[in-house]
């Protein structure tokens, strides 16, 4: 795809090694740790996420990918660490303010708002709604126009995500795959600078996956930064500009898709340590 070439050129000269600096990072994380009892769920020394690129975060089950997302987006408290997003210090910021800064995430276990309709789920995502203030809410003319504009945008997205025929259904009646789609579409309603998707395509019909991948690439080309967790290697290799590999909470490899497939540490991490040297030794 020619689009890919344009953005991947941003990584020209970037060496494929853990913690490597990027030319224009939108997010920089340092020494982020999270322990559950004795378990080091996350222990990231340094990570930079390139602006306007699609970065995949991969790793075996239990590697700490979801926990890392939770920390960065304020849904969990890091034991230590500091991270900035678009120049602002985001450590210890409550989740809702992280989202307002333009860093929006979706959940691996979807959180559809069951007794709201699909359209209402979408509209909730719109930002700076005047009708969200209690006193304004009473006076429809103050927010009716904005609501209408949001509705148009929501319906466009629903159309794109093949959910438009369900817009008046309760979100609680959607199937698992449909919920994944709704959650991603709802996140896009926020018009974030960076969207963080936790296994966005799990359970989604393959035919639709293709069109959504194209949509993600389009979003990137419009300037959005995309960071996603995914186990489906076809998807990871197909659309990511850069791949970060997490194992046992640590970043063991980084690189372009072509470099990651051949990386010894990554193969070890996926197949288990007993197949070779410990990943951390190999990566250093």
């Amino acid at each position: 795809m020619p689009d890919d070439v344009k953005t991947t050129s941003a990584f020209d000269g970037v060496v494929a090694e853990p913690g490597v600096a990027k030319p224009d990072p939108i997010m920089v994380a340092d020494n982020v740790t999270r322990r559950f009892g004795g378990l080091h769920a996350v222990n990231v020394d340094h990570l930079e996420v390139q602006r306007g690129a699609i970065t995949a975060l991969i790793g075996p089950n239990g590697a700490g990918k979801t926990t890392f997302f939770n920390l960065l987006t304020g849904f969990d408290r890091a034991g230590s660490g500091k991270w900035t997003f678009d120049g602002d210090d985001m450590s210890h910021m409550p989740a809702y303010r992280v989202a307002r800064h333009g860093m929006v995430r979706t959940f691996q276990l979807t959180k559809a708002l069951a007794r709201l309709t699909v359209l209402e789920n979408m509209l909730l995502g719109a930002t700076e709604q005047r009708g969200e203030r209690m006193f304004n809410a009473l006076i429809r003319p103050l927010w009716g126009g904005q609501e209408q504009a949001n509705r148009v945008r929501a319906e466009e997205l629903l159309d794109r995500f093949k959910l438009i025929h369900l817009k008046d259904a309760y979100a609680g009646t959607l199937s698992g795959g449909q919920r994944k789609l709704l959650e991603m579409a709802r996140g896009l309603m926020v018009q974030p600078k960076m969207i963080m998707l936790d296994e966005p395509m799990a359970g989604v019909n393959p035919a639709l996956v293709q069109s959504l991948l194209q949509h993600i690439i389009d979003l990137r080309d419009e300037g959005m930064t995309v960071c996603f967790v995914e186990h489906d290697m076809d998807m990871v290799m197909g659309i990511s500009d850069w791949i970060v590999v997490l194992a046992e909470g640590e970043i063991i490899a980084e690189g372009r898709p072509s470099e990651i497939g051949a990386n010894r540490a990554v193969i070890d991490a996926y197949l288990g340590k007993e197949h070779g040297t410990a990943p951390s030794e190999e990566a250093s």
Partner: protein
Amino acid sequence: MDFASILTTALAAGIGPVAAAYALAAIGLNIHFGYTGLLNFGQVGFMLVGGYGIAISVSILGWPMWVGVLLGIACAIVLALILGFPTLRLRSDYLAIATIAAGEILRLFYMSSYAEPVTGGVYGLQQFAGDFYDLNPFPPDRYELGPLSFGAPELWIMIVGWGLVALAAVLVYLLIHSPWGRIIRSIREDEEAARSLGKNVYWYKMQALVLGGVLGAFGGMVMVVNTQSASANSFDPVVTFFLYTLLVLGGAGRVFGPILGSVLFWFIVVGFDALLRSMIANGILPFLESGDIGAIRLSIVGLGLLLLMVYRPQGILGRREEMVLDAR
């Protein structure tokens, strides 16, 4: 047995001032429980501070009654802030525990001899609603409403009470069908999802708690103005239990749920009391005395709530399909 008189007694209760007071408090509870998903088991505490706001202002402080109304509202806001501040960041159970306790503490405190100079203690306060009844536009007379007949003061408090209910219903309708209401309902469904979309969940929960609490205070005001008497014992925890029952009966999360619920609840409860009383008087139930009626009323309400939860948890106005979705 005089069934016509039993029926008129029940009807009068269904549209009476007490039903209006409960409807108001239940509209507040509906904002908490029905729309925001906040478990407030101490709505009676908000009613108490509202009612006593008027009583204390007039009887003790000698202020005009409208100042008392403002004081009642202010007390409800403060109570909501005190309850919400430490608990709304935590899981919903903590608010439930705090509100149960607060309701009882308030009742015991207002009743205590320590507070007697201000609250009248166990005797409570009386005859503080003169300002209100002075405004009564109806000349003293009996007023017929179909088979029912009301005195002028009763008619006046009924009209004001139900007028407030109508205003509150319009307020809730407008709020719920707005982006504000959408956030409130999303918090009920999944507050983390709301957070992930940039909504300050804590702040919205606080707004909902305050708004519902203030409506509860209005319910308490109508209650005490109706009888011209504020007595802490009438703000028993059972009141909150009744409010939940009538809310579930009418349909939680529906604008008219608490209103229909309150009318039906008082119609049924008072009608049932009257029926029992007349049966006892006629010797049909020789093993009962009229003193037992209070206890029987409570058991019947409990049984009714139980049956409702099993057979029609969505209430009369609720949607079955929403109930199914709720079972997550």
